[in-house]
C-alpha cells in the first residue's frame, strides 16, 4: 500500500485532566459497543436500509469533537453514528433514529445516514458522497458574513476527495478564506476500492498543496493526536482560511452490512486491529497512572448498562404517526385550494 503515515511524536496526555481523558475513553468505548449492538439489531431486522459502522475509527470523532466548540458547526458523511454521539447527541435518540422511531433525532424520517441536531450545530449526516462539502463551505461563508467566530468541521471520507465537490469547495474556501476544516477520514477504502486504486494521491492531505492551504496528516487511531491536530486546525481556520487535515484510519468491518469483503485480506484487518484506538488508549491511560484496569472495567460496565437503556428506549419508542408522512415537506406549505 502506497499510503504511509507521516512520522510524528504521539502526544502524551495533551494537558487534559484525568476526568477529560476518561471521558474520551468512555465515548470511544460506548461508540464501539453502540456499533456492535447496531449490527445485532440490523441482523435481527430491527434496522432497515443501509448501516455503515464506525468500528475502528472511533478515535477520530471523539478526538475531533473534543476540540470542536459548541458554537462551531459539524457536517459529516453517512458513517455518522460515532459523530452524533461524540458531538453530544443523545445516544438513545440516535439509536431510535436507526430504528426509524418518532423519538429519533430526525423523527425516524432520516435513518442511519441522516442524523442531525440543530441544537448541537450538527447539520447532518449526508449520504451523497461529497454532497455536504459545498454546504459546509457555505456555513463557513455565513460565519464570515456575520462576523462571528464559528468554525466549521467538515468530515469526509478519502473516497470523496476524487469528486468535483472536493475541488469546488476547497477552491472557494481558499479564495474566500473561509473557516472550514476539511477533515478526511482516510480509512483506505471507498466501498471496496482501495485508495491507491482510486486516487492519484494516496496521502490525500497533499492535495491541500494544490490550493495553497494549510494541510497535515495525523494518526487517526490516536485520539489525542487527532484532538491536538483538530484543535490546531480550528485555531488556524478562525484566523486564516481553510485547512485540509487527513486522519489515517481503518474500518474493521465492511463498508455497510452485507459487504462480502472480497477486496482485502484478513491479515490486513488483523494488522490494523493490533493498532486499536481504544486498547491503545487504555494502555496509555494505565501507563500514565490515569486509571487502572478496575477503573476502566467500571467504565465498560457503565457503558453496558447505558446500552441496555439505549436499546430499550429505541425498541419501546413509538413509530412516527401517519401525519408525519406529510410534515416538513415545506416550512410554508401551500395547500391546494
Amino acid at each position, binding site marked *: 500500500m502506497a499510503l504511509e503515515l507521516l512520522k510524528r511524536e504521539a502526544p502524551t496526555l495533551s494537558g487534559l485532566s484525568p476526568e477529560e481523558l476518561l471521558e474520551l475513553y468512555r465515548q470511544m468505548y460506548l461508540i464501539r459497543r453502540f456499533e456492535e449492538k447496531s449490527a445485532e439489531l440490523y441482523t435481527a431486522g430491527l434496522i432497515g436500509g443501509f448501516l455503515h459502522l464506525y468500528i475502528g475509527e472511533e478515535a477520530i470523532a471523539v478526538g475531533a469533537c473534543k476540540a470542536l466548540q459548541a458554537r462551531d458547526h459539524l457536517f459529516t458523511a453517512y458513517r455518522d453514528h460515532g459523530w452524533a454521539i461524540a458531538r453530544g447527541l443523545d445516544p438513545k435518540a440516535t439509536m431510535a433514529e436507526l430504528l426509524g422511531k418518532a423519538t429519533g433525532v430526525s423523527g425516524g424520517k432520516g435513518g442511519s445516514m441522516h442524523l442531525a441536531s440543530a441544537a448541537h450545530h450538527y447539520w447532518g449526516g449526508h449520504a451523497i458522497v461529497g454532497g455536504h462539502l459545498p*454546504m459546509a*463551505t457555505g456555513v463557513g461563508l455565513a460565519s464570515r458574513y456575520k462576523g462571528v467566530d464559528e468554525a466549521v468541521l467538515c468530515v469526509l471520507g478519502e473516497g470523496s476527495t476524487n469528486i468535483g465537490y472536493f475541488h469546488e469547495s476547497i477552491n472557494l474556501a481558499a479564495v474566500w478564506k473561509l473557516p472550514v476544516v476539511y477533515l478526511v477520514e482516510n480509512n483506505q477504502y471507498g466501498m471496496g476500492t482501495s485508495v491507491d486504486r482510486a486516487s492519484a494521491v494516496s496521502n490525500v492531505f497533499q492535495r491541500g498543496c494544490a490550493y495553497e492551504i494549510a494541510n497535515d496528516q495525523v494518526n487517526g487511531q490516536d485520539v489525542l493526536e487527532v484532538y491536538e491536530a483538530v484543535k490546531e486546525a480550528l485555531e488556524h481556520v478562525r484566523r486564516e482560511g481553510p485547512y485540509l487535515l487527513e486522519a489515517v484510519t481503518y474500518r474493521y468491518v465492511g463498508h455497510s452490512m452485507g459487504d462480502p469483503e472480497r477486496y482485502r485480506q484478513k491479515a490486513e484487518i488483523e494488522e490494523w486491529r493490533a493498532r486499536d484506538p481504544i486498547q491503545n488508549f487504555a494502555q496509555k491511560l494505565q501507563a500514565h497512572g490515569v486509571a487502572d484496569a478496575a477503573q476502566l472495567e467500571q467504565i465498560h460496565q457503565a457503558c453496558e448498562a447505558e446500552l441496555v437503556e439505549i436499546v430499550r428506549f429505541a425498541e419501546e419508542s413509538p413509530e412516527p404517526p401517519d401525519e408525519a408522512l406529510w410534515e416538513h415537506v415545506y*416550512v410554508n406549505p401551500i395547500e391546494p385550494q
Partner: protein
Amino acid sequence: MAVITVREAISQALREEMHRDERVFIIGEEIGRWGGTYAVTRGFLDEFGETRVRDTPIAESVIVGAAIGAAIAGLRPVAEIMTINFAFLAMDQIVNHAAKLHYMFNGQIRCPLVIRTVGGGGRQLGATHSQTPDVVFAHFPGLKVVAPGTPADAKGLLKTAIRDEDPVFFIEHATLYQMRGEVPDDDDFLVPIGVSDIKRQGKDVTIVSYSKMLQVSLEAASKLAEEGIDAEVIDLRTLRPLDTRPIVESVRKTNRLVVVEEGWRGYGIGAEIASQVSEKAFDQLDAPIRRVAQAEVPLPYNRRLEQMALPQVADIIHAVKDVMYIN
C-alpha cells in the same frame, strides 16, 4: 404604477429586499463587477459591497451548495445560475440537498434559498444553451418552482420568494427581460407563490400557459378575438405547487382547453394539467385537450429551424380551432 421592464422589476425586487433585510445577499457568476450577464445586478456591487455581492468561480455546484449552507446558517441567499442549462451541474445540490433537508431532518433544518436562473430558447444559442427544462425542476417535492411572465409578477414573486422559508427555484426567460408592463410602486408589493392568475377573461376556450408562452398565448388570444373567438388565458406563474383550481373552473365554463408550454411535450406541464383536468372536469370537456409545445428535438442553431421547433402564435391558434372543431 410605473411602467418598467422585467429586467428592472427583478432588479428592483432584489435591491428592495437587500435593503429590507441584511441577511439577503446575492452569489453567482459575473453578478458583481460584470453587473450580471443579463444586467439584472448592474450597480449592486457599488451599492452593497463585496460581502453581499459575491462573484464566484465558474462552479455551479458550490454556488448552490454554499448558498444552501448559508441558508442553513440563517442567511437568505439569492444564488444566480447564469442559465438553467447550467443548473444541471448543480442538480445534486438542488434536488438531493435543498429539496430534502427540511423533510429528512424532520424540520430541524431550514433552507430559505432562492435560485434565480434564466431559461428559454429563441436566441440562436444552440442546443445546450436554449432549453426550457422547467418541468424537470418542478418534479421534486420540497422545491417551489416559479416562472413569471410579466414585470409585475416577476417583481412580486421574487420578493415573495426571498421572504419565503423554503427553497424557491425562480425561472426567468431570456427573451422577456425587455418586456414592459405596469408594476405597483409599493415596497411590499408581493405576489403569492402557488396561485395561478387569469390574465385574460374569455368564454369560448381556455388557454393555459406561463412565462414567455404566456405572452405568445395572449397575442394568439388577441388574434382569435378578431375572428370572434373569446379565449380565456390563465397564467400558471408557479409550477410547484401547481394551482389548477382556476383552470378547472375555467374549463367548466369554456369546455375546451389548450395548454401551451415552451418545453418539450413529453412528460410535460401540458401532460400534468391535462391529466388533472381529466380527473376533475372530464364531463365538462367538449373536445380532447390539446398541447402546444416544443418539437421533440434539441434546439438547432439555424434561426428558421429554431423557430420551427418553438411554439408560435399560429400553432396556438391552430390548436384552439382544433378544440373548437372549426379547422
